[in-house]
């Protein structure tokens, strides 16, 4: 009896702790959203409800151009990065020697573990030496560069889980190398390609430090713009903007999970061995 009560009590404390962690994690986000409606113009005294800052955001052409820049860079860079990452995953997968494979994997992971500042600074040197003008091209190239390794990491397990008998069978049945790639391998690793693309997309949308180093004057992405505005102090249009970004992010996440669920259901019916191997989530 006594024991049971203690367990219950512990559960109570446990729940309080978890609730507290969630509260702290979400409080700043909701704090931002709440004050985006403040007519008082500050982040500490709520005077009245207003949508002025949303109007300001929508009417700000410069900001809209920056939003479009950010989206274009994200979509373009993650598409290119995913294509190169598929090649990279195939390259790593087909290397026979264990040592060569590990070396290749370590090289692949260098940019994942490197601090952003170093990536940014070294890319700045690289672009300056090669003579690439800072702006759209340099930002695009660096986003492609730092998205590739993470996409490779997402695709590789799917390749490794693929049964080699599938490609052997295809070859025996007379498929060319091209057919094997497009009709067997790519469909099987499709979930990995999608998650790789999604990760690259979020990396690109989120990145600040690297972009900050390689944007010249006149070209900006959303995070660089937010940084320069935030350095000037509190401005509620940032709050309004962040509310919009938050809603967009949630939509993106829901969309991704919805897609992922459909993607994971279909291959189960088509390719049974893959399903049995347990496609990692």
């Amino acid at each position, binding site marked *: 009896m006594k024991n049971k009560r203690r367990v219950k009590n512990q559960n109570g404390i*446990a729940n309080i*702790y978890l609730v507290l*962690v969630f509260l*702290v*994690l979400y*409080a*700043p*986000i909701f*704090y*931002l959203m709440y004050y985006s409606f403040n007519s008082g113009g*500050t*982040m*500490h*005294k709520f005077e009245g409800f207003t949508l002025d800052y949303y109007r300001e955001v929508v009417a700000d052409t410069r900001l809209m151009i920056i939003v479009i820049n950010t989206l274009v860079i994200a979509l373009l860079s993650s598409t290119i990065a995913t*294509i*190169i*990452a598929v*090649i*990279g995953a195939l390259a790593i997968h*087909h290397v026979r020697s264990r040592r060569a494979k590990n070396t*290749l*994997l370590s*090289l*692949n992971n260098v*940019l994942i*573990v*490197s*601090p952003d*500042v170093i990536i*940014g*600074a*070294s*890319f*700045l*040197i*690289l672009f300056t030496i090669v003579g690439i003008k800072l702006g759209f091209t340099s930002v695009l190239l660096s986003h492609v*560069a730092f998205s*590739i390794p993470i996409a490779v990491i997402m695709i*590789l*397990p799917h390749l490794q889980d693929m049964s080699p008998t599938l*490609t052997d069978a295809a070859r025996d049945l007379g498929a060319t*190398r091209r057919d094997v790639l497009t009709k067997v391998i790519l469909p099987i690793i499709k979930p990995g390609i999608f998650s790789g693309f999604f990760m690259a997309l*979020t990396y690109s*949308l*989120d990145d*600040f430090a690297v972009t*900050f*180093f390689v944007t010249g004057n006149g070209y900006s992405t959303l*995070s660089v713009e*937010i*940084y320069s505005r*935030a350095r000037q102090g*509190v401005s509620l249009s*940032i709050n309004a903007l962040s509310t919009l*970004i*938050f809603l967009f*992010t*949630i939509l993106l*996440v829901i969309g991704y999970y919805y897609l992922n669920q459909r993607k994971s259901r279909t291959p189960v019916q088509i390719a049974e061995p893959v399903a049995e191997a347990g496609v*990692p989530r």
Partner: protein
Amino acid sequence: MMTKGKSYYLIPYYLWIALFVIAPVLLVVYYSLFDLEGKLTLNNYVNFFTPVYMRMMLNSFWYAFLITVFSLLVAYPAAYLLTRTKHKQLWLLLIILPTWINLLLKTYAFIGIFGTFGPVNNFFDLVGLGEQQILFTGFSFVFVSVYIFIPFMILPIFSALDEMNLSLVDAARDLGASGWTTFRRVVFPLTISGVRSGCMAVFIPALSLFMITRLIAGNRVITLGTAIEQHFLVTQDWGMGSTVAVFLIAIMALFMILTGGSRKGVRG
């Protein structure tokens, strides 16, 4: 089988490795050997060992250490409790969700929260502590960084705990171990790989944060990251900036070798 014959299609990937992985590191090392006038010199390295940079380095390490420790202290119990909830995958997703919101926006929120008239100071007033200067201190820097890093610490620890065989815990309890002993002798050692990758995911970025120090700590805290940014973008002394970067890379490599055991556990 695919490597036989033509493998032109592999070129873009190898080109990426050569251009964006190997070349940048070499370039940073190369640039660290030049001074402001473009003369070949070792002066930057000599400068690095002066008290100014040494103090900055110690400072940077101290803050990164604090951030890692506090993140671990908050994240471990949270991860442990998460594995015991009913819909744990859903809760985990909710932990991850804030990481998808731009880091700068979350940092910006704290300018309001910690500000002179912000809710924290209101609370202090209410309790009778009076108004405190929270923004632009080391404390606010550590707090905001811990806040940013907690999900990255919870994630690996959660997976380590989730993979742990629960019957081992039951066995320990059956053999008469107390809750604390079970944790210390069974649970923690079994999840040490998760703790290690969590600490790696926090410590190295914490050494190089510069936007949080600029926005929240108001240049009171100078880390290796702030120094690199300052040299590259403000004073244009790329040589010295590269030298600091070389040391950061060396520290990172050392860290990777020391914690090498845990990397093997990573999938792929």
